[in-house]
């Protein structure tokens, strides 16, 4: 389930771009997560990704370098670390590329760097706008099934408020 939502999360992250190549950057074993803090770092793959035209990505494939997790502290199928990828897409101006680096810790994306690679000024603006937040459609999952210690939402109401609501409803029915 976690693998599926991670893949889907990455897919949506790219927002319509198709990831064709991924390189695992973090070293294997128990080393600490590398922090991709520098926004100006441009990650370049060692092989040129294929250009894809006329497609909106509905899924993402992460290949190569993935190993089953051996560290028992993590509950994720993916080893902690930084994953980099370059997406290729077609803008009206032609083929474009966009770089993405994700830091994964225990199954949660903890850092994302989207690096505009475009030289085209229109695409650069679009890539910068795309990079500031992510929008996804969400669904609910039963809280009982989640391994959580706390819940955050609107404040639980006191008896007085609940009584008032009940009274109003009763009056409305009368």
């Amino acid at each position, binding site marked *: 389930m976690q693998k599926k939502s991670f893949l889907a999360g990455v897919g949506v992250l790219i927002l319509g771009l198709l990831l064709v190549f991924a390189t695992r950057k973090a070293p294997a074993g128990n080393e600490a997560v590398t922090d991709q803090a520098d926004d100006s770092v441009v990650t370049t793959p060692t092989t040129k990704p294929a250009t894809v035209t006329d497609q909106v990505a509905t899924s993402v494939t992460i290949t190569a370098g993935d190993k089953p997790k051996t560290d028992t502290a993590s509950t994720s199928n993916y080893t902690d670390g930084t994953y980099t990828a370059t997406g290729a897409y077609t803008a009206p101006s032609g083929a474009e590329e966009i770089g993405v680096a994700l830091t994964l810790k225990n*199954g949660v994306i903890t850092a994302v760097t989207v690096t505009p690679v475009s030289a085209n000024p229109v695409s650069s603006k679009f890539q910068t706008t795309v990079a*500031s*937040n*992510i929008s996804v*459609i*969400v669904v609910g999952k039963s809280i009982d099934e989640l391994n959580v210690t706390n*819940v955050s939402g609107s404040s*639980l*109401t006191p008896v007085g408020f609940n009584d008032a609501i009940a009274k109003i409803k009763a009056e409305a029915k009368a």
Partner: protein
Amino acid sequence: MLLPKLKLKPKPNVERALITFEAIGTSWSIELLQEVSFDARLQLEKKIHDRIEMFDQAYSRFRSDSLVTQMAREAGEYQLPVDGEMLIKLYQDLYRLTDGAFTPLIGQVLVDAGYDAEYSLKPTGKIASPPAWDHVIDWRGSTLVLKAPALLDFGAAGKGYLVDLIAQLIEAEGVCAFTINAGGDIVCRGAEPVRVALEDPNDTTQAIGVAAISNQSICGSAGNRRAWGPYHHTIHPQTLTSPRHILATWVIAESGLLADALATCLLFVTPEVLQKVYTFDYVILYADGRAERSLTAPVELFLA
């Protein structure tokens, strides 16, 4: 005859004390993740209750003996409690940043909508936009001058702030690992990250995601509980309506004060407006089922 179940002796682990109670109109749960003696725990509980009472007596518009209720009756110069300056400063800064949408003068609006001290929940029919800050409030450091009587409401940030103050109190008592959850506004301290479910306002048995926070605060704001007629407890001072396009917001920030305040601000302005000044992460759940998140939010959203 049934034999009693044999319980294996549990591995010795840290005693986790859970302190729960009702205060300031909601449910509190404080988990101490550090061994605390029975006496120390009792002492700590008393200090926590005293501190909450002190805060409530200053800032609650729901009690007749509070400073805020006094201010609603009479103009004049009022001495702020020591913790008041930081609260008023943030309110003033956010008032300016949101062009007046975030305002402590919302108190009368809430009352006229029906959310008064008695919970009558019946609109008075007199609801009107509040006056501008400078028309009524003159903040002078440790004193607050009201040029006219005004019902101030600090609900948008007060609870988050109080959680910070209680966190400081617990740390002062030598407990460094704990989680405070006051009705969904959470502050945690300690080495272990805390997993927090983001409650689905449409179905409170469910969550739309999980946040993992560490020595931070997460505060949530939603209109699903305190709702009556056309309103819920957040009302825009200019439109005089409760926002409906957003169902819930969550902010992860350094302090409960900031997280709580910004969670409300996100109902009125876009994140970019606030990001000009403040560092924070967020999730916004829209009425159409879309959730927007900041890139670095330590959050996993459950995708459709």
